[in-house]
């Protein structure tokens, strides 16, 4: 496992942000401070429960759906460090990168065992990752460390070529965003010299509205076993494997796949880099970071 200190270097493949920022840039999401009222306000979770009780159109089969309560969390600073980010049950699935990426993994893990390479985040998400991912073989690398990049790329290429290894799951956005948008895809995942299987994931907002609506989902995942305090309903589409075309650059390949995913899941495309969202101070302890990779069509499941 490669461990390294947190580097301040920008990634080589990170595009020049000014080229992509629209003139009226979307506001960044600053880490919220958590207040007592946030903690005490369990109204969204209660609303969900009441909605379930009142739903007259027939309950959804538990095997095919699970409801989502997760949402807002804020940062609490104690002793000058962020020691924990409290997971409160507000239903508005907010714009929280770390959180969403965790759910994505859990959803897909239910369908097949992926070898996961995950970006390790500070705070409670890192804590969750440590707990849940312990059982899955991981390849860790520090995304920000340029030295590691070569080593990791090689490790990953080796991994994908071994037929016995679990398929790799990548989220090339590098971070996860509000489930309304797909941000620019990092090209790294598209340079491994293998097919890319796009997976489109769309969370169903119906379950996060305060008004309960009993419409059914097209495809839903079962997560109760992993999540005692929250669960997710979403649509997951496995799209046709894609290959690098003649004369296509990695970036163009990335954009093409992103178009497919955005179209399938009905997401808007935004040109700005997902990393704009990362403005959290990092904790002092060393971190091992990784990325998620997409599964290969030929890999064993």
């Amino acid at each position, binding site marked *: 496992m490669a461990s390294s200190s947190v580097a301040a270097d920008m990634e080589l493949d990170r595009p020049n942000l000014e080229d992509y920022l629209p003139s009226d840039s979307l506001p960044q999401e600053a880490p919220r401070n958590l*207040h*007592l009222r946030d903690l005490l306000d369990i*109204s969204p979770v*209660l609303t969900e429960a009441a909605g379930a009780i009142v739903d007259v159109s027939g309950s959804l089969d538990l095997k095919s759906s699970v409801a989502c309560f997760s949402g807002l969390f804020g940062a609490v600073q104690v002793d000058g460090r962020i020691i924990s980010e*409290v997971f409160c049950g507000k239903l508005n699935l907010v714009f929280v990168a770390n959180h969403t990426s965790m759910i994505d993994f859990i959803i897909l893990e239910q369908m097949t065992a992926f070898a996961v390479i995950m970006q390790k985040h500070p705070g409670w998400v890192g804590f969750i990752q440590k707990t849940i991912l312990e059982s899955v073989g991981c390849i860790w690398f520090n995304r920000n460390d340029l030295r590691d990049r070569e080593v990791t790329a090689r490790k990953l290429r080796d991994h994908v070529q071994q037929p016995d290894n679990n398929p790799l799951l990548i989220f090339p956005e590098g971070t996860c965003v509000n489930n309304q948008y797909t941000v620019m895809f990092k090209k790294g995942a598209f340079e491994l010299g293998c097919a890319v299987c796009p997976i489109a994931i769309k969370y169903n907002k119906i379950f996060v509205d*305060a008004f309960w609506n009993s419409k059914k989902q097209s495809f839903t995942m079962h997560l109760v076993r992993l999540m005692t*305090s929250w669960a997710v309903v979403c649509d997951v589409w496995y799209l046709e494997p894609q290959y690098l075309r003649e004369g296509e650059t990695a970036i163009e390949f990335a954009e093409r796949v992103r178009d497919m995913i955005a179209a399938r899941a009905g997401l808007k495309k935004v040109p700005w880099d997902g990393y704009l969202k990362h403005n959290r101070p990092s904790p002092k302890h060393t971190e091992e970071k990784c990325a998620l990779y997409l599964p290969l069509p030929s890999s064993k499941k």
Partner: protein
Amino acid sequence: MGSTSSMLTQYDIEEVQDHCNHAFSQQEIVSLYHRFCQLDRNGGGFVSADEFMSVPEFAVNPLSQRLLRMLDGLNFKEFVAFLSAFSPHTSLQQKIEFIFKVYDTDCNGKVAFEDILSILRDMTGSFMTEQQRQKVLMHVLEEAGFTKDSHFTVPDFMKILGNSDLKMEVEVPVD
């Protein structure tokens, strides 16, 4: 109203409506009655904990156990009164009182550190250690001017939650 009757008379509807302070319209009450009968599979006149837990979305709710304590054995009239907290016609004050009741498990009118911690535990499950939960709760309490030994009453909750844009509403489907 009759406990085992499966017919809802106009008189019953009006009685139920009064009991919930007109939080629901008569059509909504009829709708809720259909739902109540759907849930009350053995026709006992009340919905048992098991019958509530057979609703999947309810079963996976982190606060389901707490709510069950409040819901178990309610007849239809009380069921509607319980749900009235989620009506758009109910005041913020009443909604906050309902939330307070969820916290106040021993029903003594006071919510303590342990009570809040307990709900936090239900909500965060294994995603936080007990230590982390306590630290965060302590911090957040202190920031708000309270201590670990503080006891909250309904007026306290009103002060804390009263200014928020708290929304707690459920739509009762009406044919």
